[in-house]
């Protein structure tokens, strides 16, 4: 438990260090991360190429660099999930016919996604990003699916509000 906590704190500290590299992820105008980049960032292919060189210095450099990139991706993905959550909450407040069970399911999905991002962050420290391709790909797909569903929900809410007026 203590080890997990230490790793989580270390991951948080490193992700703070990468804040300056994030660019303007919350600002408008920045492009979304193309889906294929998630599988590339977490892919073991480059790592295999680097390892074949048998150079500890280059291996160290690669691990450090790819870890930073992976943490930027996790931070960006978590931020995107929070943004979708905020948008959903705003749309739900405007909606007149909310279904409590559906809302609870959506909340659980958001919470699960944030937990996956947390697990990826810890996994990056424990095992390195090269072993987390499956989990990162799953998170990416889920975020895309939720974003799409959320967009449809917002549109439907707006249409209903217009119809009532």
């Amino acid at each position, binding site marked *: 438990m203590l080890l997990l906590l230490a790793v989580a704190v270390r991951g948080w500290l490193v992700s703070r260090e990468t804040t300056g590299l994030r660019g303007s992820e919350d600002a408008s105008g920045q492009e979304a*991360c193309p889906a294929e*980049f998630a599988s590339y960032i977490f892919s073991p292919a480059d790592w295999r*190429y680097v390892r074949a060189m048998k150079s500890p210095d*280059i291996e160290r450099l690669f691990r450090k660099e790819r870890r930073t*990139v992976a943490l930027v991706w996790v931070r960006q993905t978590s931020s995107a999930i929070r943004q979708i959550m905020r948008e959903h909450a705003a749309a739900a407040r405007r909606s007149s016919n909310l279904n409590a069970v559906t809302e609870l399911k959506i909340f659980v999905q958001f919470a699960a996604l944030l937990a996956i991002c947390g697990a990826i962050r810890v996994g990056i420290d424990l095992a390195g990003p090269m072993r987390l391709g499956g989990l990162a790909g799953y998170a990416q797909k889920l975020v895309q699916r939720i974003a799409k569903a959320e967009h449809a929900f917002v549109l439907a809410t707006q249409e209903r509000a217009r119809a009532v007026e």
Partner: protein
Amino acid sequence: MILQAAYEDLLRRSLSKITGDLARVIYLASTRDYNTGTYHHEGLAARYRADVAAKALEVAHREIFYRIAACPLPELVRELEVYVNSSRQAPQDVLHIWQKLEPYRLALPMNTNAAVARLFVSNLRVALAILQRQVQGAEGQSTA
């Protein structure tokens, strides 16, 4: 339609003469004004309009940048090697300057996704280290 024509013109006349995507990205970034972020290409602007030429340059820059950012490390090392060998300076000097000043940071298109931008910078750092090791190895062999 006119943008498509300008874009194809750019690919045909200018970019096809440059070897390698890395060199193309560096070239396209160099057509961008540091202060305004606007792209400019004399010949293209004369054949089309200045704003159309600027947009074609921006589109090409973004497209090639994303391609190079996603290219596997061995391929990036080859791209870097082609670029370094095509310059008139000694490879060791170019590699040294690139490691110290990281001029490739200026090659990022505007509003690039932060993770993609960081991946590009990271991969180039690693590719530079790999190429330097290869150059040093080759020099060591030739002096032995």
